[in-house]
């Protein structure tokens, strides 16, 4: 899919880190430093759907929030179309958000219960002072249709609680695309929904990419949805990006032990014969060692004590366009450079 497109980078994360300080208390004294994201390097290509796959607490949501600048990175640089947006403020931040929008995980929480659908979707138009109320209404109707809520006239004047979860999430998508952003961050948009609704959401997201030319970052915990929707995926484990590459390739030929463990754990739905079992996950977690080593060392069944516990693993170009962060891998013969 991505071959036919020009590989133009739209968003780039360079060495981005984010720390949280846990709240201290009387007994423990000051707070502990928790690393949510550790030196993430990532680039999104124009017009692709990039899947960021990880478990809860892996930092995947933080990554999305940094991109839409709901949070600021503590280290590193984020650029959109070459422009540094890491620490934008005020007017410039507002302009940036006309290009970058987000769909949140829980449609029951991401719509204001006291605001009608029309007003929720029109919010970005109002805050950016684009057109008069009648124009807003017209664009809202149009974008609701795009998001699969038609006839949109039936939906505009309702409150969120009068809609089903799937309909609410479509309203949230409508709000995110009403400004026709160039980048859309979708943070687990289907994890709260029934399967029949998720297929609809996938269809709409594909439509947004194909018809509006938007680039989408799809954050998910499900390898299967990432496989279905994404051109490329990145696997993130406890704040470390561990593998990145074309979706089909990463899922059919995963290289990093953690990616393999994820694939082992995913229900195969009658296709277990087609997927090999890797068995890279250690049954019992190892005790913590120095923080310098491989992030996956404690749960990795393949790890070599001296090498993996002591030093941070290097990136290897394991296949064309596919990279993995592991000591035990080797570069594929012609080391193709990759983002």
């Amino acid at each position, binding site marked *: 899919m991505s071959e036919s497109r020009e590989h133009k980078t739209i968003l780039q994360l360079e060495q981005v880190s984010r720390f949280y300080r846990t709240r201290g208390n009387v007994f423990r004294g000051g707070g502990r430093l928790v690393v949510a994201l550790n030196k993430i390097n990532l680039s999104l290509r124009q017009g692709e759907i990039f899947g960021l796959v990880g478990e809860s607490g892996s930092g995947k949501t933080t990554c999305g929030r940094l991109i839409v600048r709901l949070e600021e990175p503590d280290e590193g640089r984020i650029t959109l179309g070459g422009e540094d947006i890491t620490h934008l403020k005020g007017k410039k931040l507002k302009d940036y958000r006309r290009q970058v929008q987000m769909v949140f995980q829980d449609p029951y929480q991401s719509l204001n219960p006291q*605001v009608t659908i029309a007003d929720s979707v029109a919010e970005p138009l109002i805050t950016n002072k684009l057109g008069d109320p009648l124009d807003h209404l017209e664009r809202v109707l149009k974008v609701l249709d795009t998001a699969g809520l038609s006839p949109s*006239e039936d939906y505009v004047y309702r*409150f969120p609680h009068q809609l089903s979860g799937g309909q609410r999430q479509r309203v*949230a998508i409508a709000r995110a695309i009403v400004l026709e952003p160039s980048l859309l961050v979708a943070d687990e948009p289907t994890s709260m929904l029934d399967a029949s609704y998720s297929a609809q959401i996938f269809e709409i997201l594909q439509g947004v990419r194909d018809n509006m030319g938007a680039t989408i970052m799809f954050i998910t915990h499900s390898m299967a949805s990432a496989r279905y929707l994404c051109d490329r995926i990145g696997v993130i484990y406890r704040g470390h990006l561990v593998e990145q590459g074309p979706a089909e390739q990463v899922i059919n030929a995963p290289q990093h032990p953690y990616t393999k463990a994820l694939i082992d754990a995913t229900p195969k739905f009658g296709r277990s014969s087609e997927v090999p079992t890797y068995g890279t996950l250690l049954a019992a977690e190892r005790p913590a060692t120095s923080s310098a080593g491989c992030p996956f060392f404690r749960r990795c069944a393949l790890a070599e004590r001296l090498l993996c516990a002591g030093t941070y693993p290097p990136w290897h170009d394991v296949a064309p366009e596919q990279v993995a962060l592991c000591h035990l891998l080797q570069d594929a013969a012609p080391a193709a450079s990759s983002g």
Partner: protein
Amino acid sequence: MENKTVQILKAKRRALWRQRFMENWRVFMRNPLGRIGMSLLVMFGLMAVCSYIPPMIDPMYHPMTGVDPKVVSSVGPSWQHWLGTDFMGRDIFSQLLAGARVAFLVGVSAAFMSVVLGTAVGMTAGYMGRFTDTALMRLADMIMVLPTLLVVLMLAALFGQLSIWMIVLMIALFRWPGVSRIIRAQTLSLKQRPFIDAARVSGASHLRIIFRHIMPNVLPLAFLYMTFRVTSAIVIEAGLAFLGFGDPGTVSWGMMLQWVWKTGYMFQAPYWLLPPGICISLITLSFYMLGRAMDEVLDPRLRDETQAG
């Protein structure tokens, strides 16, 4: 867009708000407390409106200045005076009606002012956080621990007689901290909700987030607390008046109680003592019941049409 579509949509919008109102009204009226409170309030409202009638019939029915020339001391109920007269021959029934007017005036305006103040402070503190939050909440704590009645009494002693508006203002100034604490807590929890993040991503400014996204969610709560504040304002005003610090130019139920006590009719004239006492109890009770019924309207468990899973 076509004019006709716009018309249809406008109708849909009106229908939506009407539907929301009717839904709430139904939940409210389903509650027996709501029905009783509402009917009592309607009764007191009628009393307040009717308070303008007796002085029109005859100047001697004026609650403050009208004196029945034939009466020299307090007499019991009669055809002329349905509830009797006070020590100087003023009609108790028309005083009672006028008292309802004052009770509404004091109760609602003091409650309104304190709730507006409390909501504004609570939302600011909750949304801004950090230093603003700490400063405002310590101020609220300080005012909250002051015994309202005592302080107002001292001020009254200092400045002499207070007008009814001064009393209203004092009550408002001393009763906002409770409201602000609740609104702050609500704002803090709303601030964490994803729809606020969504508004930020949509480009909404802080002011817009406060007024457009947080306020509609705290207003129902503020309104609920207003009904409870009305109760406390009426009680404070009655207490002040009974202790002799009321506005001498108005006839409130507290004033009536003070007169009956001061002139020594406390145990001789039940027709004079009981009506204002009962009225004070009933009106506070009715606002309280109103609040409780409203509480039910705001309860999301009754609002959501939960489907079985």
